[in-house]
């Protein structure tokens, strides 16, 4: 496994994705100068607040008859959706990424100051960047395994389909996500909020 840890030096904040996240529609939205400036300033500030971290785990897949699967060293996933996704996969990869909690702290400060627009924009930037890290990690795995003739599936996260959100607890433990500071609330929400965890499979053939 040769995944390079995410370094902020190479990370950009994609302005377009932030705009889309905020409901921007290229066809009809007419943004004004002040709003544009506010977003640009928020992006500059956010650059100083993102501390990207990444954790990865992988394992051979033991299938459980379409009901789910087992991963080493003893992590069981009960989900037909995942069994289907990893149907022809011998290996599963999981990862968790986070941008740290500085962005949400700044957002909360904005809320306290009644700077709601800035809070909204900061939150959107955080969400976009957590997704970016997930995407980067996904493509790192893709690139790493492609030369070996393996194809990465799409990714899947707890809380989607029939994989319950409560599975997050064992999943994060399997990943060792604590070491990058990800904790779980009693209701299975990740802290820092701007964190993403996901699983994917590696198949011999592209579906």
């Amino acid at each position, binding site marked *: *496994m040769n*995944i*390079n*840890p995410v*370094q902020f*030096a190479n990370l950009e904040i994609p302005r377009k994705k932030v*705009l889309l996240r*905020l*409901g921007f*529609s290229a*066809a*009809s*939205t*007419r*943004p*004004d100068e*002040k*709003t544009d400036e*506010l*977003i640009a*300033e928020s992006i*500059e*500030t956010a*650059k*100083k*607040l*993102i501390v990207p*971290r*990444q*954790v*990865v*785990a*992988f*394992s051979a897949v033991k299938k459980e008859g379409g009901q789910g699967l087992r991963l080493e060293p003893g992590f069981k996933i009960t989900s037909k959706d995942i069994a289907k996704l990893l149907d022809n996969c011998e290996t599963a990869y999981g990862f968790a990424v986070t941008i740290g909690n*500085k962005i949400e*702290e*700044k*957002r909360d*400060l904005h*809320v306290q100051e*009644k*700077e*709601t*627009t800035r*809070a*909204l924009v900061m939150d959107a930037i955080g969400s976009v960047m957590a997704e970016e890290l997930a995407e980067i990690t996904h493509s790192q795995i893709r690139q790493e395994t492609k030369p070996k003739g393996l194809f990465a599936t799409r990714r899947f996260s707890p*809380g989607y389909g029939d994989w319950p*959100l409560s599975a997050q607890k064992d999943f994060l433990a*399997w*990943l*060792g996500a604590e*070491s*990058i500071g990800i904790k779980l*609330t*009693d*209701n*299975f*929400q990740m*802290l820092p*909020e701007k964190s993403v965890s996901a699983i994917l499979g590696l198949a011999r053939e592209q579906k």
Partner: protein
Amino acid sequence: MNKTDFRKLVSERILILDGAMGTELQKRGFLKGVNAPEELNVKFPERIQEIQKDYFEAGSDIVIANTFGANRHKLADYGLENRVEELNVRGIEISRQSAKKYNGLVAGDIGPVGAYLAPLGKVAFDEAYEIFSEQAKALQKAGADLIIIETMAEIREVKAALLASKDNFSGPVAVQMTFTEDGTAVTGTDVLAFLSVAEAMGADAVGMNCSVGPKALAKLAKILCENTSLPVSFKPNAGMPKLVNRETVFPGTPEEFAEAGKLACSYGVNLIGGCCGTGPDFIRALAKQVKGGKPVSRKPKEKFFLSSRTKAIDIASVKDFIKIGERINPTNRKKFQEELLSGNFTTLRREAKEQVKSGAAILDINLGLPGADEKTLMSKAVEEIQEVVSVPLCLDSSSVETLEAGLKACAGKCLINSVNGEKEKLEKIIPLAKRYGAGLIGLVTDEKGIPKTAGERLEIAKRIIEYAQEHGIPSSEIVIDYLTLAASAMPGAIKETLAAIKESKQKWPNVKTVLGISNVSFGLPSRQILNATFLNIAKEEGLDMAILDPYAQMSLTINPIAKDLLLGEVRAGSSAPKDSLDKFIQEYGYNPQKPIAKKQVELNSDEKLYSSVVEGNKEEIKKDVEMVLKNGKPPLSIANDILIAALNEVGAKFNSKEYFLPQVIRSAEAAQSAFEVIKPLLKKDGSASSPYKIVLATVQGDVHDIGKNIVAAVLESHGWEVIDLGKNVGAKAIVDAAKKENAPLIGLSALMTTTMIEMEKVVKERDAAKISAKIIVGGAPVTEKYAKEIGADGYGKDAVEAAKTASKLAKL
């Protein structure tokens, strides 16, 4: 150890620091039985000592005590905030025992507080200073040989830690930041910007640790070594860790670590060790390469750094003439003054950006205006400006308190404008510059006022330079302002200024000179011609920088008529200076202004208020409301016919996607400000018994509340009184609040499928309490169908719809 001994020691031989403590504790399973690693100092000191022994055996000369996180803020995570002194003192004591056999030294370790300083985070500068002071006092008490401040990621935190350490610890203090691969800290500060601050504040050694691995970090150490004569410390980690299959894997090997160490020493590093992932093997390999060697001596050129948060400029080597922008000054600018007094920084931010675009390399900040709390204003202005531009600042005030507030807020090394030859000023301002690490502008006036001759001005300059030198500020960090007097009022005075500059540059070549340019043309027409001519003559005499209006197009030529006027020279057939003044006025006195851009269609006051809501003009809207009130419109009509109507238009624009969410919220914020003005009036004239009230909460178990906050802002903008209970609120607390407040409406938000079920509990709780409050729900996983199923009275798919639904429900 005193500072002189330290300096001597590190110049004689390369000192080997230890390797990692944290990752070594983890690797050896030594964190069992404690929560905070610092607890080991008390509970299991033998574990720390075992690692330290291994480091000394491997070749370390200095071990760094296990006190990295032993500050009040971090220890509070473990409920240990009241044991700061004990954990630090014990940390040093047990290390001292380890060091005894090897005759080794013990450093106290100070790490970050664990949250960024405002405005990036929530810790105030003074608070951080107190936190670090407490730790530094304990390290002093325990008798640490030196302090190493390390892994700093934010420059104002570096300032607070350095200040606290120097105030409370008598030994040498080294300070290290952590950098990413592109040579900047995560908060944007680059190596030289860091150096400029650490050096000016009197750090005894500067360095870097952790982050990007030995090879990449050595490149950055080279930059430090080339630019400072201070001892340099170097403590790389074993590469960027990979976290794979529940293990932290550092990619580096002892050999490549030692190789990079050797390279770093060839640049002149004095103290060298390892950070995360480097164990005794690494130190052994390193010691084999460099231990006992004599540090390469470094002779960097004399520098005069000024810096912003992100980068430094070396004033001593800048080739271009340096423009200091003077536009952040509200004198004679009524609108700017009003804005600042009401806490509106729109113009300030715009002036900062525009001046930098127009070529200002430094921005002067002068906020002296009647009725203002200058100190608070300075601190806020510095924060605001730093958010939008990255040039060094020049803090311009006659108040020492204001300057200090600005220095605390400044995320870089700035100039102080100014000190002068008065004894009291010298005594107060020069120590301030030294303490916070700032360059100085010295104005050549004193108790006796403005000296007439160049000779007298140089006398005062000498006094300022010598006083500064005695207090540890080198002459190369001083800029002398030889005074610009108005040519109309003091004919002939300009000659003295120019003579003073010329002589100053001959006498003290490394002392910089500055002039405020614009004053020369005070009271005269066509000021730009005079200003440009004055600037160009002064440059010829050796002027290094000028405080000026960077928007003004400055001609690069000397206008002969203007020159006559400035220098009061006599030409054939005329007598100076009266004649040259006449001649200038004759030539340039007719100075038509550019026609003002075609007048915009005048809006009446109602329309103006309406458009302020639609355009989200939060900064101006209060004035617009006052105007409408003055014209006699009743408050209720303002609310309904203007504010709500405007918000309806905003809502329509949102529905047609002409507006996206930030625009809607900006309008909401504007309307909210407007309601703040008219709400008390609405109550007074009884036109509305009370505004609608809503109890708002994010349900139990849910910690995401940005959605709820957006809804709160939109509701408030419609005049609602929002009782915001926050996040993670239980059903009973919500219903109790609705009862107590007699609120007709409850709004609930949930962001997860696991927490939205709580909404049903609130409905049941309400029914059980038999109150009439209606319940409206929303949030990412919530659908209209779900809302109906659980018996909620309304549903909002977004904030705009929530406000509509709320109004409908309240009117039922």
